[in-house]
């Protein structure tokens, strides 16, 4: 346990910042890239998780549990968001028989 807990000080905090910036960019790229609504929701989960990772890293480096409690709340919000988002996908499939995001393009104006 002791050597495990000293491990986090060997990894510089910059590495976690780089990793979560990369994950966030990949998620944003996926949101712009895909037309499948379920894939867009998955890319949103990726972006949520990069933020979670960064909050946890800062919380661990500052030894302050508030950051990890915030990650817990973000997980709650993500679960609620996925339930509502997937039911919107089901409704979309039922009404227009497709999950192509371009069919919702009237929401742009």
């Amino acid at each position, binding site marked *: *346990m002791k050597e495990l*807990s000293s*491990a*986090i*000080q*060997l990894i510089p*905090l910059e*590495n*976690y910042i780089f*990793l979560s*910036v*990369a*994950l*966030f960019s*990949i998620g*944003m*790229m996926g949101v*712009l*890239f*895909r*037309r*499948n609504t*379920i894939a867009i*929701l*998955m*890319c949103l*989960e*990726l972006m949520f*998780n990069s933020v*979670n*990772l960064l909050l*946890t890293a800062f*919380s*661990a*480096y*500052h*030894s*302050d*549990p*508030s950051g*990890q*409690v915030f*990650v*817990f709340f973000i*997980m*709650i*919000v*993500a*679960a*609620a968001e*996925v*339930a*509502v988002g*997937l*039911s919107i*996908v*089901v*409704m979309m*499939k039922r009404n227009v028989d497709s*999950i192509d995001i371009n069919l919702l393009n009237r929401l742009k104006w």
Partner: protein
Amino acid sequence: MIFLFYLLSAIMIVCALLVVFSRNPINNVIYLILCFIAMAGHYILLNAQFLAVVHIIVYTGAIMVLFLFVIMLLNLNKAIIFRKSTVTRVSAVVTGGIFFLVLLAATRQTFEIHAKYPFNSDIGLVSGIGKALFGEFLLPFEISSILFISAMVGAMMFGKKDE
């Protein structure tokens, strides 16, 4: 330990790229699950054992099963033919790359970080999180249950057939 960090990071980045570029929705879900498991490894590396367990339970146990269930229910488990135009896809990749560079340049200036409290190895355990959650954050915790109820009712309202 630093080797473990690089291994988990490589798994996460590759799986995230495969989530974006793979065509089959089932494969997307499987790669996202792999990515989340690697992220649980990161949480353990960061000494946040409670979050690692909750992450496995909530994400790979509940959310990804929900995704798989919807994909199976709507019979989407074959590669879907529609794609964006080539211009849109190229510009999406360029936008993502530029966004990555801008964020990287912005965060490079902020690396003077000093720890706020002396190092304490058991803040990520259940007792540390529980003391913070049920002390300082008790009201948001109770309010989040209302959020869950409203999300559940909203999902049912959306899923119901209209008469």
